[in-house]
């Protein structure tokens, strides 16, 4: 099973590669007014408006650093109604892939309700890599704001 690795600050995380639509460089984002801080803005991908969520902002409370290795990972997100939406995740150091078995990851031992997206942890020679469940990344209010709108657009 292939995982896409990225960093948020000093910590390493991994996403399941099958869930990734495409990795894009950090495009110019159009800010979205009245949006939560974690929503960095929206961009256009294959003719669609796609929201971009800053994972750094979401987890560490600071915007991601503006570097070449800071990239946008487009994933397919299923909302509460089961409708799939493209979401851009802004993360740092998106440069590596890692092939591991899912059993190589072990449970964290603790479960934090405020961060349901944190999965089990893999330990290798460089340290720990925590599995991120992309489907649980967005809190409900944010998801509502983002995808009700897009649902409206989709309906229209």
């Amino acid at each position: 099973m292939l995982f896409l690795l990225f960093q948020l600050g000093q910590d390493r995380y991994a996403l399941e590669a099958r869930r990734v639509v495409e990795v894009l460089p950090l495009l110019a984002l159009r800010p979205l007014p009245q949006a939560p801080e974690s929503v960095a803005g929206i961009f256009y991908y294959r003719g669609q408006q796609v929201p971009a969520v800053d994972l750094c902002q979401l987890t560490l409370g600071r915007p991601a650093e503006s570097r070449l290795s800071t990239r946008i990972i487009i994933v397919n997100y299923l909302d509460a109604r089961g409708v799939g939406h493209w979401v851009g995740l802004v993360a740092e150091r998106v440069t590596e892939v890692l092939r591991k078995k899912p059993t190589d990851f072990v449970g964290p031992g603790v479960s934090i309700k405020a961060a349901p997206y944190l999965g089990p942890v893999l330990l290798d020679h460089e340290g720990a890599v925590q599995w991120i469940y992309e489907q649980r990344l967005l809190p409900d209010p944010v998801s509502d704001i983002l995808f009700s709108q897009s649902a409206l657009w989709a309906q229209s």
Partner: protein
Amino acid sequence: MKRFTIWQRMMATLLLLLLLLVGAMGLALWVAQIRLTAAQHSEQLSTAGQRIYADVLRMNEALRGLLLEPPSEGAQSGRSDAASAESDLLANLSDLQRGFPDQPALTGALRSFREFAERTLLPFDHRVMELAGTDPVAARTEYGKNRAALQDQHEALLANLERELDLVKNSELSHAQGLFAAGLAGLLLIVITALFLARSQSSSWARLLYHASARVERMRRGDFTEDVDSEPTADFGALTDGFNRLAADLSQLVGQVQLSVAEVDATSHDLSKTTDHQQSAAQDVESAASQAETAAGKIAAGSNDLIHTIKEASRTVDQSWQLAGDGQAALTGIEATMSQLVEATGSLEAKLGALSEKAAHLDGAITAIVKVADQTNLLSLNAAIEAEKAGEYGLGFAVVATEIRRLSDQTAVATNDLEKMIKGMHGLILDGVTTIGKFSEGTRESLQSLSHAGTQLAQSIEQMRKISGQFQSVLESVNAQAADVQRLNRTMEQLNEAARQSAETLRQSTVGLGKLNGAARDLQTSVLRLARSK
């Protein structure tokens, strides 16, 4: 009594002596003349006798020669010889008759010989000569017949004549002898007279001089009373009168001298006082001049010290000036070097700027490389993801994607290193630029302050030069002052010398006054003695 002056007496005596001398000379000349005349006469007489004898012999010889020789040869010369002998005989006889007319005996003998010659001897000869011309044999006969008688006759006459001539000669000589004796007697008389005259004159002069010296001796002793008239040699009137007048004048003079001595005494006293005053004044002047000389000497020494000091100061200023000049030159050199340094710094700065620019370009290239690597990385990621989605079909593609990703990773790492290196270099260059800029600024400021210092040094040098010139003028004026002081010193010395000399003169004049005083007193004593004896 008739009086003669000394001059008249002397002249008379001299004239008398001259007359006697002239007379003696005339007498001596006369005697010598008489002796000479007598000698001439005697000589003439003896010569004449011999010549007459010789003439007769010549006549006889001529006649005999005529008779013995042939008529053709020498007859003419024999005749002319006889004729000349005849005429000589007659001329000699006439001379003797004319020379001694006052001797009757001689005249008689001459006349008888002449008569014999004219009447007997000459006609015989003529006759024989005529016969010899015509008939030599008859002539010889005639000659032989009369010759002996004629010979005897004329020899007797010649002997007579000779005797008479000797007599006349002797009488002449005795006469001359008598006259010579008389002349000598006259000369002796004149000499005796002259001696007597000289003797009498000298004795009278000696007597007069003796009396005059005695009179003077009396006068020397102060006796003016005795009159020369009473003396035996009173005929020298002028001298006597002179002596009398001299005595009277001397008597009067003694009185005057007494008065004068008193005056001299008083004057000498006054003069002595004045001299004392002058001497003290001269001493004052001398001491004042000496003090002034000392002061002038001190001033001269002071001014010499001052000159020395000023020269030292002037030399020091000159040295400082030269040092400052050297310093200025060195400063100028430093300034030039600094200027070059500033220029070099500027050029270095510019080069560093260019380097920085190049580094910036390098940065751009690196960025491009980084972008390429980034794109490659992104591409490999997406490829890997797509291969995963493809499942079994995408395995080979996944390998390629992995390789691409590794390559991009290596590129990224290398680029990262390069970027770091270039960034470090860039930082160093920027630091260098900054440092150089600061250094350049500092150098520029240093140059400005150096230039300022140079200007100030130049001003200082100018002032030093002015000061040096002023030192020179001060030195000149002080020199002039020193020369003045030296002149003053010399003048003071001369004044001092003059004062010393005048003091010396005064001392000498004091001594002279003392002597004058003594002389006046001696004179007074002598005069008093004279007055007492009068």
